[in-house]
């Protein structure tokens, strides 16, 4: 895939990957074997008929291609960009035997971008029969939007309640512009609105209204896609110093509030010249690459295991390295120190080695005695994970949570312990990618439909 050159792209927030040209897309589509038992589709969490859409592309029937995708996926422009296709559709492609799987993500993005560019877009499918049944969706991230879209198509009156001032959840505040342009998210949200989904921003279920108020207002079923909006810290000394940020804060300021356009936009960010990002996931890679684009001269990824154990996608690790981000693996921060004004000026670390495998199957990192050293940094970004956003959960004590405060659900239906209330995405266990959250939203929509039919 063509990309902006590393030297160029670290100076801007524009999308890194250009996407396939028509010629490239046609060539790629023509390589598909159109397997009868399509393993790619079986490994797609939202069950896209992948051979069918690739076949349409091959025949240059681009409108039909996007129609096939949208039968199952309401957010193709998003998924074509941020899905870990290597673990799903592309990972299952039979052409892996020849080490040349079809670039399904690239083709999905091509179809989605084609439609977004060739406005007016294909007319939205009208619901089969309009139902006078109201459904509430809490949170407008990938899980909520998918659930909302599917239910709207079945004819339900769907309202999405969003806490922030704009819809999209993690797609807006979490994933940077250079990986997922916000215009794409906005257009895909507009598409959902065209299906009849109502979106109420600035509305926090748990604060503005409670779950019981929602039912009292006549909503018959609820889906909670409230996300993982509580950043974890490491509980080491110095974490509250100035210029120590959670990755959530850095990314929210930059992506949602457009701090990279400061002072044209009012929201500031204060990132220094030498930045340490702690963590090895996609969020850590995003934080590192954002820091670089904000003007940092040196950016380090600090991770306590090795690159093999990093949860970040290979593509994102490679992008980060190409951009000059240095990986300090087998390194654990112990303490952050600051100057007399309370700003970070160094970070003390210890070197690690891999020991026996732990519960997750990954080899446990163990500290090497006497290997302490100091890193010369002026900014620290903590990207070691998040737990579920507590606002809705605290205001809804009857909802059953596991020991990590994630909502307990029946994995087959996404049903919670409260009648008529379903949940999915990062607020529940396991759905840690955009597409997994979307799969959960889809399962919930089916189950909610069944539930509402039985309630009649």
């Amino acid at each position, binding site marked *: 895939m063509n990309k902006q050159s590393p030297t160029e792209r670290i100076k801007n927030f524009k999308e890194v990957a250009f996407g396939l040209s028509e010629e490239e897309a046609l060539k790629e589509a023509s390589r598909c074997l159109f397997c009868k038992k399509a393993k790619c589709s079986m490994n797609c969490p939202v069950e896209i008929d992948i051979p069918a859409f690739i076949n349409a592309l091959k025949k240059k029937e681009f409108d039909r291609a996007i129609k096939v995708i949208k039968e199952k996926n309401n957010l193709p422009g998003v998924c074509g960009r941020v899905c870990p296709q290597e673990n799903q559709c592309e990972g299952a492609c039979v052409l892996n035997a020849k080490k040349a799987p079809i670039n399904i993500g690239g083709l999905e993005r091509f179809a989605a971008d084609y439609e977004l560019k060739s406005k007016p877009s294909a007319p939205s499918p009208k619901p089969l029969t309009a139902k006078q049944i109201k459904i509430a969706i809490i949170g407008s991230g990938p899980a909520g939007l998918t659930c909302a879209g599917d239910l709207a198509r079945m004819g339900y009156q769907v309202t999405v309640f969003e806490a922030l001032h704009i819809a999209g959840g993690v797609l807006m505040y979490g994933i940077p512009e250079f990986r997922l342009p916000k215009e794409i998210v906005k257009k895909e949200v507009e598409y959902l609105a065209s299906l009849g989904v109502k979106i109420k921003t600035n509305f926090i279920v748990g604060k503005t209204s409670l779950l019981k108020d929602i039912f009292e207002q006549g909503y018959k079923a609820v889906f909670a896609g409230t996300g993982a909006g509580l950043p974890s810290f490491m509980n080491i000394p110095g974490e509250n110093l100035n210029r120590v940020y959670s990755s959530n804060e850095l990314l929210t300021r930059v992506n949602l509030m457009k701090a990279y356009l400061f002072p044209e*936009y009012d929201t500031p960010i204060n990132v220094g010249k030498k930045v340490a990002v702690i963590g090895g996931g996609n969020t850590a890679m995003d934080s590192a690459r954002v820091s670089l684009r904000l003007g940092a001269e040196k950016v380090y990824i600090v991770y306590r295991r090795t690159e093999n154990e990093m949860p970040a996608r290979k593509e994102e690790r490679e992008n980060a390295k190409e951009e000059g981000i240095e990986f300090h693996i087998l390194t654990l921060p112990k303490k952050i120190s600051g100057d007399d004004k309370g700003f970070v000026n160094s970070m003390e670390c210890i070197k690690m080695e891999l020991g026996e495998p732990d519960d997750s199957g990954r080899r446990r990192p163990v500290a090497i005695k006497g290997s302490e050293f100091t890193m010369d940094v002026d900014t620290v970004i903590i990207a070691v994970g998040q737990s579920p956003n507590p606002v809705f959960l605290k205001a809804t004590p009857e909802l059953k949570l596991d020991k990590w405060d994630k909502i307990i659900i029946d994995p087959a239906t996404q049903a919670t312990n409260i009648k008529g209330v379903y949940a999915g995405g990062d607020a529940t266990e396991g759905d840690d990618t955009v597409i997994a959250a979307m799969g959960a939203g889809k399962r919930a929509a089916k189950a909610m439909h069944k539930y509402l039919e039985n309630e009649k």
Partner: protein
Amino acid sequence: MFKIYSNEKIADGIFKMILEAPLVSARARAGQFMMIRIDEQGERIPLTIADISDKTITIVYQVAGVTTHRLTEKKSGEYVSDVVGPLGHATDTDKIGTVCCVGGGVGIAELYPVAKAYKNAGNNVIIIIGARNKELLIFKKELEFLGAEMFVVTDDGSFGEKGFVTNVLKKLIDTGRIINLVYAVGPGVMMEAVSNLTKPYGVKTLVSLNTVLVDGTGMCGSCRIQVGTETKFACVDGPEFDGHLVNYKELKARQSLFKEQENHACKIRGI
């Protein structure tokens, strides 16, 4: 979009705005705050609720940077694009006996609904308010209207007694007045001074922190503050905390995080 009913200057650099926000006012209680975003370019800023009516919320803000400056330019009948709330925990205003409500600077506006709620719950309320000078003294009439025992001080003596709120509080305690709770809201230095004063006397003290926020829902952690041995998020765990446990050094340092950026933004806009 949220309609502005009024936006008037009530003291030097301090403005009072009444906004139509029925969803917020329906559930808002004393001690809570909300987030405002003026427009597409605007920052999300937290503002403590100073008064609540059927459909409207009153906020009082001090001009501190670009966003608050831009807010002053809004006229009645115009709109701000986003308002969300109510956020944070409401003040727990049970009947506990004598509550001394201490407010400083713009914090006096935030003190008003809290003092009112303590009074309505049947407490004996003592109010102490202070400002740098007479011109900066706000919400005096509103507070007087509550009919509580009230003391007013200014740093320069241009109104009321000359001195700080802590002078009055110390005198009250030293003369043997029984105070069951002190509630303080105002600048960091003031809340710190009040807490330092009451600690040796063992008088329970609550402070309401006005920290840097982005989302206001626990998502970013920018408002984190050490309270005792734990790190708390002012937005979801507060904004009120035990004044004797707050790390004020951290609180004050955090307020300087974006100083350079803010000064730059103000300078290029000629503010």
